[in-house]
């Protein structure tokens, strides 16, 4: 991993749909080298996937998302890893993190409606061994995601010429 790799990752994180030629110009590398470097980054698991940032509210699919905080008793020898592994296998769990503070794990969960999320938490998450406490926060509105603002701001007027 060198500076050029980091630059490629920055370019991809901003827009993963650029052509190899465009990326080559931006990173000041040959297109072939872009190709090999990206392949290596994929191989090495640094690049996990290529997705889109979607404003689901605007898409109007009516899904609900929640952040769920969990207090967990860590396991001897494994810490939080094994329970994290079990939790992460649920399709409903979109993200899962170990965090500092009052709670230990933080999940982002989606469902068709609030009831579905409530059922998921009470039927699958809360009863798991080692989980001592849950706190479910339904997301009411997303203002910013992955560095992209969802606020529809008026674009500032720019004069056509200035010297």
């Amino acid at each position: 991993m060198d500076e050029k790799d980091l630059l490629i990752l920055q370019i991809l994180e901003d827009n993963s749909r650029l052509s190899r030629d465009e990326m080559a110009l931006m990173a000041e590398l040959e297109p072939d080298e872009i190709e090999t470097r990206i392949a290596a980054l994929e191989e090495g698991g640094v690049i996990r996937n290529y997705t889109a940032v979607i404003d689901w509210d605007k898409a109007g699919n009516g899904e609900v998302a929640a952040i769920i905080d969990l207090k967990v008793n860590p396991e001897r020898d494994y810490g939080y890893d094994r329970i994290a592994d079990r939790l992460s296998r649920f399709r409903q769990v979109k993200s899962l993190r170990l965090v500092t503070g009052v709670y230990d794990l933080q999940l982002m969960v989606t469902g068709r409606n609030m009831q579905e999320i409530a059922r998921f938490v009470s039927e699958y998450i809360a009863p798991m061994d080692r989980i001592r406490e849950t706190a479910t926060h339904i997301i009411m509105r997303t203002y910013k995601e992955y560095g992209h603002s969802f606020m529809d701001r008026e674009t500032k007027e720019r004069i056509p010429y200035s010297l």
Partner: protein
Amino acid sequence: MKDFISKRAKTIPPSGIRKFFDLALTMEEVISLGVGEPDFCTPWNICEASIYSIEQGGTAYTSNRGLQPLREAISDSLGKNYGLSYDPDREMIITTGVSEGLDIAVRAVVDPGDEVLVAEPCYVSYSPCVTLAGGIPVPVPCSGKDHFRLNPDVLMERITARSKVLIINFPNNPTGAVMRREHLKAIADIVTDHDLLLISDEVYSELTYESRHTAAATVGDLRERTITLNGFSKAYAMTGWRIGYLCAPEDICNAALKIHQYVMLCAPVMGQVAALEGIRKGEDEKDRMVREYRVRRNVFVDSLNRIGLSCHLPEGAFYAFPSVEKTGMNDVEFAETLLKEEHVAVVPGSVFGEGGKNHVRCAYAVSRKELKEAIVRMERFISSHRG
């Protein structure tokens, strides 16, 4: 009634782009590569610092020189980044943009009849400021052959017994040219030998892509005969805040300070507070913007050459300065027809002086998406005008 307009005011030319400006305003979906400012908003921490300061009642005059902590921070940063050393209490003034800095610098040193050498193409205010101070602007053309650097031989040809000052601007608006240390060395010798004063506008100093900026005052013996001008507009995307600074040896600085205190009193305090936040904590945001300009430059200049507008790789600022000679049009015709037919705004190079003829200035401080669309339109334009 008498004609009240002064001869000096009559002498200075009107803006060379008024006609274009008015035309562009009547059009839909104009992609403007004509704007000499960053397309980024000022980083938010800078705005927050200023908003907070206003909430705390920070709305009064500052000292004439500007906020002391800001001058200290600038002095530290100039030392760290360029090896310049200026005493923040005796050799520095915070100005209302570099525009004011240039004006008071010229007025502090130019007497009626003095010749002021102006390296062109350059920002449009230099010669009018000289004229308003009673001086005589003497253009020194920089040419595409030299990648728009100032050629020492050409400079020599323009020097007379009345020459007093040389004004340069590198990284350059409109060409993006950069003078590295080795290039400045030859100029420094001439300036010293002919006992000239140098005014160096370095407002694009943070926007260099191939090498670190060389401050003119660090070359040879130039420090004692240089006025360094710089500011926050370009590097920190702070054009509207109007904050620049002038650094010079104490006697020159004091002369400029007298003019500053009478005509400006002080630079706006909100802008000074914002600038202080920028220089203290804006480094990362600034670097991010510079990286983005570099990427855009690479893509844009490559595309210009591909569609037949030959363009040297600009090493600094955010301008590409391609030649339009091959299209058979001059720069004004090219810019006007391109605006009318494809709604792409570029600035004719001759606006920036003789040396800019047959070139157009394209600012790549616009989003990548717009740059791409601009290239599509320009390519269509060029092929439709090909014989």
